[in-house]
């Protein structure tokens, strides 16, 4: 049952992801959030990176390959940014398990590259003390020495190197300083001795328990002597062990542990507090010895910026300005490249239609594959631009301030200040919005944000609203300045927001109940964004979307094309009849009993089924049924004539139009979103739950509106 590591020479050559004959050395990159770790990772690996997920959890796994000056190479694994290796959040659990070699999918790293922020040394040293305790060869990368110097903090690097007993390399990535030295030090990691034994004494009684337990671990499990101390401290600190930990240790060890804990309790020693205090005392001692700082902290640029940016009045003006900019970027400016893509796709479709004999193959190519690829890449401009904005905000340090300003408002529905940007982005499109939730570290808050994000009215709903409003809402002035169509549109947006906040509140009260998310957020000093980090983030997100969600979107688009094109009717059948007799059409008719209580008939049913790919398909589908153009016609063309046809149809009424709109506000009519939620939550549970709850919410709300409306006699025209 021993899962603890064997000596490094016999470690399995597992999962480093490159099937070479000799396994490359694997190094882990460890550091605090905001310490410049990502920048260092990008500078070391360039584009040779791979992003994935750890199996079964939503923690992101980043790996890369590093070329060493001597011609060799090394694998690099970028662990999530951490303040501590105490396993509290999923990030910390993973980082600890990787570093201790407890994961089956990753071999224990051969060494650690530990990134430390020189401008924030004392706090960073707390993690350093835990990293050094792991007993793995370590090199420390000291970042932000320029920032430290600006505030008058001088770090004595040779003295620090001597105190910690590991090589330290200062690096300024933006000025391209120190990278070669760092790479040379990494190359030597294979021969670097592990750091010396820990230098933070505990109270004697606690010290004895740690020694006994670590000796027992060495004897029972063959734990490396350098690592046994860390394991022992970890076991003694844990209030309760996770199930996988229980299985890791022998009954004798577990019994001993329980006895130790009882003994410490009788002695009145709070072991965890003692460890934390001893580590901080060590960090304070080291800090005092090697950092010289000015007596009175001068007001920094960050303080001066914050006085404006966090001002009670100007703070919000700036905040709304920044948010308006983000929103403008994805809502309006992204439209320009999206239109290029749209016209490119239809030009290609047109080209194929004119040069290829009509038939099933042509139809599959034009309306299945190209339409599917088209749908997928239409999202790219929004994703790229949103992540451009987000990484700019994160990299400069404004994101933390935005979360700080919005936290109170978001906490009303049990969410986190960081949920604001994902929800705002979802007005343009839920897909980038949901992808943006990765900045929320509280798992439940992140899930709730993902679950309610699609309720915010996205741009794909606008064609549906526009069609229904144009056909049925009279263009009348209200109170002089407002018009009825405008107000209706706004009402739909408000309905979506109210539903999102209401459901968030409900989920936090029921399904994802828990203490309100803790809001501990570092306010990093402002600094100029790095073009490289911003670009890498954009590329990384776009790549992830194309690989994971894009493939699902494409294949489902083809399936839906098949369902709405087969079985084939004899040639010459009008498109409306063809659609009505297709599998999708039959499905639409089959669900008529289910949607009849909402006042919908089979024609709306068919459009509901086919617009499951994307909401705007509703318009072209209705267009086909009402024999306005065919499925190749553009939405605008169809809307123009379709609104008159709908208006002339006695079946429709303004009430029914409102019902259709409400249904589209609330229902999960977007496969691409489902695909992204599947990727982001790492499984099918939540996307399926999302489809279920949103459909139920839409059905019930529409049912109530329809029947109350009918009872009030508003069903007429």
């Amino acid at each position: 049952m021993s899962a603890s590591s064997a000596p490094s020479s016999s470690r399995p050559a597992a999962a480093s992801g490159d099937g070479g004959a000799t396994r490359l050395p694997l190094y882990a990159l460890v550091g605090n959030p905001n310490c410049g770790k990502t920048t260092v990772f990008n500078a070391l690996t360039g584009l040779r990176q791979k992003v994935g997920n750890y199996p079964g959890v939503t923690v992101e796994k980043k790996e890369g390959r590093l070329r060493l000056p001597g011609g060799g190479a090394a694998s690099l694994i970028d662990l999530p940014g951490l303040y501590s290796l105490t396993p509290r959040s999923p990030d910390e659990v993973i980082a600890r398990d990787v570093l201790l070699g407890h994961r089956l999918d990753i071999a224990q790293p051969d060494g650690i590259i530990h990134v430390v922020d020189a401008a924030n040394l004392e706090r960073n040293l707390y993690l350093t003390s835990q990293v050094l305790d792991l007993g793995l060869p370590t090199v420390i990368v000291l970042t932000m020495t320029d920032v430290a110097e600006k505030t008058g903090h001088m770090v004595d690097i040779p003295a620090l190197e001597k105190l910690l007993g590991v090589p330290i390399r200062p690096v300024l990535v933006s000025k391209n300083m120190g990278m070669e030295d760092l790479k040379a030090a990494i190359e030597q990691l294979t021969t670097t001795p592990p750091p010396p034994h820990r230098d933070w004494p505990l109270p004697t009684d606690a010290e004895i328990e740690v020694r006994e337990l670590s000796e027992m671990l060495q004897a029972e499990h063959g734990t490396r002597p350098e690592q046994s101390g860390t394991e022992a401290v970890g076991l003694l600190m844990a209030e309760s062990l996770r199930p996988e930990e229980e299985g890791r240790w022998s009954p004798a060890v577990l019994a001993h542990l329980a006895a130790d804990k009882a003994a410490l309790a009788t002695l009145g020693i709070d072991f965890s507090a003692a460890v934390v205090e001893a580590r901080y005392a060590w960090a304070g001692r080291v800090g005092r010895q090697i950092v010289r700082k000015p007596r009175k902290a001068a007001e920094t640029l960050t303080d001066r910026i914050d006085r404006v940016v966090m001002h009670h009045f100007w703070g919000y003006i700036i905040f709304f300005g920044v948010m308006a900019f983000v929103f403008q970027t994805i809502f309006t400016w992204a439209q320009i490249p999206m239109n290029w893509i749209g016209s490119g796709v239809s030009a290609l479709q047109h080209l194929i239609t004119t040069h290829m004999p009509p038939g099933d193959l042509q139809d599959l190519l034009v309306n299945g594959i190209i339409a599917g690829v088209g749908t997928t890449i239409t999202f790219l401009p929004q994703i790229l631009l949103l992540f451009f904005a987000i990484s700019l905000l994160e990299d400069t340090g404004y994101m933390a301030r935005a979360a700080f300003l919005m936290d109170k408002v978001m906490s009303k529905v049990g969410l986190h200040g960081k949920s604001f940007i994902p929800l705002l982005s979802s007005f343009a499109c839920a897909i980038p919005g949901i992808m943006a939730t990765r900045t929320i570290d509280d798992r439940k808050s992140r899930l709730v944000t993902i679950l309610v994000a699609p309720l915010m009215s996205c741009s794909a709903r606008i064609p549906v609203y526009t069609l229904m409003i144009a056909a049925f809402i009279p263009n009348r002035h209200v109170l002089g300045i407002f018009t009825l169509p405008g107000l209706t549109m706004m009402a739909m947006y408000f309905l979506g927001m109210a539903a999102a906040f209401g459901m968030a509140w409900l989920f936090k009260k029921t399904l994802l109940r828990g203490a309100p998310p803790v809001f501990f957020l570092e306010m990093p000093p402002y600094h100029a964004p790095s073009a490289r980090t911003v670009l890498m983030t954009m590329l990384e997100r776009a790549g992830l979307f194309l690989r994971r969600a894009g493939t699902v979107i494409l294949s489902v688009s083809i399936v839906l094309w098949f369902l709405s094109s087969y079985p084939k009717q004899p040639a010459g059948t009008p498109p409306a009849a063809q659609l009505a007799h297709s599998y999708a059409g039959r499905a639409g008719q089959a669900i008529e009993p289910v949607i009849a209580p909402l006042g919908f008939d089979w024609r709306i049913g068919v459009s509901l089924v086919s617009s499951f790919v994307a909401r705007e398909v509703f318009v072209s589908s209705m267009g086909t049924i009402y024999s306005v153009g065919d499925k190749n016609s553009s939405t605008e063309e169809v809307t123009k004539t379709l609104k008159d046809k709908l208006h002339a149809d006695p079946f429709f009424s303004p009430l029914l139009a409102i019902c259709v709109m409400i249904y589209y506000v609330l229902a999960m009519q977007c496969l691409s979103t489902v695909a992204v939620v599947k990727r982001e939550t790492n499984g099918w549970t939540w996307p399926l739950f999302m489809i279920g709850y949103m459909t139920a919410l839409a059905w019930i709300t529409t049912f109530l509106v329809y029947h109350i409306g009918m009872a009030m006699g508003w069903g007429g025209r």
Partner: protein
Amino acid sequence: MSNSDNTSFLPAFCKRWQAGKARAEALAQYVADETGHTEMPLSDMQPGDFGHVLSLCSSCEQREHLLELGFTPGTEITVVRLAPLGDPMTVRIRGYQLSLRRREAEAVTMRRCPPDFDLNPGLDMDGI
């Protein structure tokens, strides 16, 4: 988009005003000792106030997390600001700025220094 927030801003501002009055009453109950230091929860300290951590509540959920963030007894803390809506608050601790909700800050009992207190007398010779 600003519409979405008007709905929650207005009541929030009213509430804050009322909460402000209630807090003024609460603050009156803290009395300084003969050295001018005052024992009070971190959540009730105002921007510009500074002091040292006296203790953490013994059984609250976030005790260990707070310890790990650096809130160990004796640590010097300065309140930098309150968010415009009164919550969360930003403090300076161990050379960095951390935001936390007042709910969590309640768990930290502080010994607030008098405003003219010198935090590091005699430590000024080796600067720059």
